[in-house]
C-alpha cells in the first residue's frame, strides 16, 4: 500500500480529507491524531510566517481573526517557494475578496504597505549618493539627469491614510489617522525600513523617478499636480534616508 505525496499533501491541507491509508500507529491501527501533527505543523508554521509578515494587519483585525484569515489564505495560496520571507504576496488581493473583512476597505493597502516594508528589509544594499553631488550640480544638468533610487526604496500610494494607520498602531503617542489618502515612501537608512508620509505631489514625483523619468520630468509632473510642490523638502527626505543610490546622466531617449 503506497502513500503518494499527492495524497499526503491533499490530506495535510484539507482536514476534511481522510488520512491516506498505509499510515499507521505503532499498534498497526490507522494513524489519525498522529497525522494531525503534520496538519498542525503546516498550518501553524504558515500562520506564523504570515504573522511575521503582517504585524499591523494582525493588530487591526485581532489575533483570532487573523488566525482565521491566515487559515483561509494558506489554503487558497499555499507557498510556492521555500523562502518564507516572500510568503504572503497575494494577501492584498485576497483581502479584497475576503467576505468577513471586506467592509474594512483599507486592509488591502495596509497589507501592501507591510509587504513593501518586508521587501525593503531584504533588498540589496546600496551606497547612498553624497548630498553634495546633487547640490553642486548645475540646474540644467540636474533636470536632465535621472535619479537612481536604492533597491530598498518602496512607494505605496493609497486612497486611505495608511501612514497614519501604521503610525497610530505601531508607534507610541501618535495622533489618530486623518481621513485622506496618503502616499508612503519607505527608506532604509541602515537596516530598518522607515515609512515616511510624502508631502502633496511627492507620490507623483517618486513614481515618475521609479518609472525612469528624468528629474525635470518628475518635477514637472509633481508641479502640474500640486503647484506648491515642496521639492527641497522631498530631496532632503530622500537624501536623509539614503534613498538615492546614484544619478545617471547621458542619453535620455
Amino acid at each position, binding site marked *: *500500500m*503506497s*502513500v*503518494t*505525496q*499527492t495524497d*499526503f*499533501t491533499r490530506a*495535510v491541507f484539507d482536514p476534511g480529507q481522510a488520512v491516506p491509508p*498505509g*499510515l*499507521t*500507529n*505503532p*499498534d498497526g*491501527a490507522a*494513524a*489519525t*491524531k*498522529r*497525522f494531525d*501533527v*503534520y496538519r498542525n*505543523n*503546516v498550518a501553524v*508554521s*504558515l500562520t506564523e*510566517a504570515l504573522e511575521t509578515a503582517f504585524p499591523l494587519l494582525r493588530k487591526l483585525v485581532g489575533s483570532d481573526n487573523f488566525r482565521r484569515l491566515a487559515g483561509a489564505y494558506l489554503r487558497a495560496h*499555499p*507557498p*510556492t*517557494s*521555500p*523562502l*518564507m*520571507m516572500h510568503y504572503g504576496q497575494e494577501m492584498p488581493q485576497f483581502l479584497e475578496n475576503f467576505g468577513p473583512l471586506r467592509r474594512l476597505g483599507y486592509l488591502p493597502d495596509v497589507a501592501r504597505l507591510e509587504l513593501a516594508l518586508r521587501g525593503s*528589509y*531584504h*533588498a*540589496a*544594499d546600496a551606497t547612498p549618493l553624497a548630498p553634495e553631488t546633487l547640490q553642486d550640480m548645475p540646474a540644467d544638468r540636474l533636470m536632465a539627469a535621472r535619479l537612481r533610487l536604492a*533597491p*530598498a526604496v518602496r512607494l505605496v500610494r493609497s486612497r486611505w491614510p495608511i501612514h497614519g494607520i501604521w503610525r497610530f498602531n505601531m508607534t507610541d503617542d501618535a495622533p489618530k489617522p486623518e481621513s485622506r489618502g496618503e502616499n508612503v515612501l519607505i527608506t*532604509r537608512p541602515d*537596516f*530598518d525600513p522607515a515609512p515616511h508620509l510624502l508631502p502633496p505631489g511627492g507620490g507623483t514625483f517618486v513614481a515618475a523617478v521609479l518609472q525612469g523619468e528624468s528629474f525635470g520630468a518628475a518635477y514637472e509632473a509633481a508641479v502640474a499636480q500640486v503647484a506648491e510642490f515642496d521639492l527641497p523638502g522631498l530631496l532632503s527626505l530622500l537624501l536623509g534616508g539614503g534613498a538615492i543610490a546614484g544619478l545617471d546622466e547621458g542619453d535620455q531617449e
Partner: protein
Amino acid sequence: MLDARTPRFDRLPDAPGVGYKLQHFAAIQADARPVEWLEIHAENYMGDGGRPLAQLRHLAERFPISVHGVGLSIGGEGRLDPDHLARLSHLVGWLHPASFSEHLAWSTHDSHFLNDLLPLPYTQATLARVCSHIDEVQDALGRRMLLENPSTYLAFVESEMSEVEFLGEIARRTGCGLLLDVNNVFVSATNQQTDPYSYIDAFPHAHVGEIHLGGHDEDADETGAPLLIDSHGREVVDPVWALYAHTIAVGGRKPTLIEWDTDVPDWPVLAAEAERAAAVLEPAG
C-alpha cells in the same frame, strides 16, 4: 552581488554550537562562550541584502558556520527545485561554510511548499530517489553534505527497512555524511515504540559529522500512547541528555548543536544549554 569570502574554517570543531538568531548578535559579539560555531537556516539568508546578510558576513569572520537547509525537499517524489538549488549554490559559493546539511524529508510537492519536514517510507524506490537527489546536490555544491535523520510521528506500512539501514545505505552510495539528531532519535523511538539506545548503537557513527540536540513537546495519541512533537521551543530534556552522553561514548566527540527555534530565549539560557553539551564533550579530569 556579494564577494566570495576566503574560507576561514574548513570544518566544525568538536564543540558546542547554537542555531543563530538575529536577536543574539550583540550577546554573541560580547561573549559567545562556550559556543564555538553557529548554524543558520539557509532559507533565511537568501534575500538580496540587509541585516541578515550583513550579520552573517560579520559572524563568518569569527565563527565556523554550518548552513542547514530546510527547504530542498530531498525526499520529494518530484525533481529538486532547480531555482532553489541555484540559490543554495550561490549562498554556499560566497560564504564557504564549514558544513552544509539538509534533511531526510520532503516539503515541496507539485510546486507547493508545505514548510514542514514530512516523512517518507523507507523502500528501495525511495532509497534510489533520495540518493539521486543527494548526488545532484553534492554535484551542484561541489562538496559533501550531511543528511539528518527526521522526527517521525507515524509509520508507513510499505517501509521495507529500518531508518538506520536506510541512512547507512545512503551514506554508502552517495558518500554523504550524516547529521545525527539525538532528540529526533528519542522523539521517533518514543513515537514508534522502539528503543532509542538500539538505534544509536546500530548507527554508522563513522559517517556522523554533526549532532543536533533540541527540545520537544509531549502529547498522547487517541489510544493514550505517548506522542512527542519536535518543537525546538524549550530545553533539551534529561533523557535526551543521557542518550546524547551515550552517543558520544559510542561514536566519539562530534560538533554538537543546540536548536531553539520557537519561543527563542535570551542568550544566557541558550549558552547554558551549550554548557551542558560542553560538559559531555569534555568530561572533567
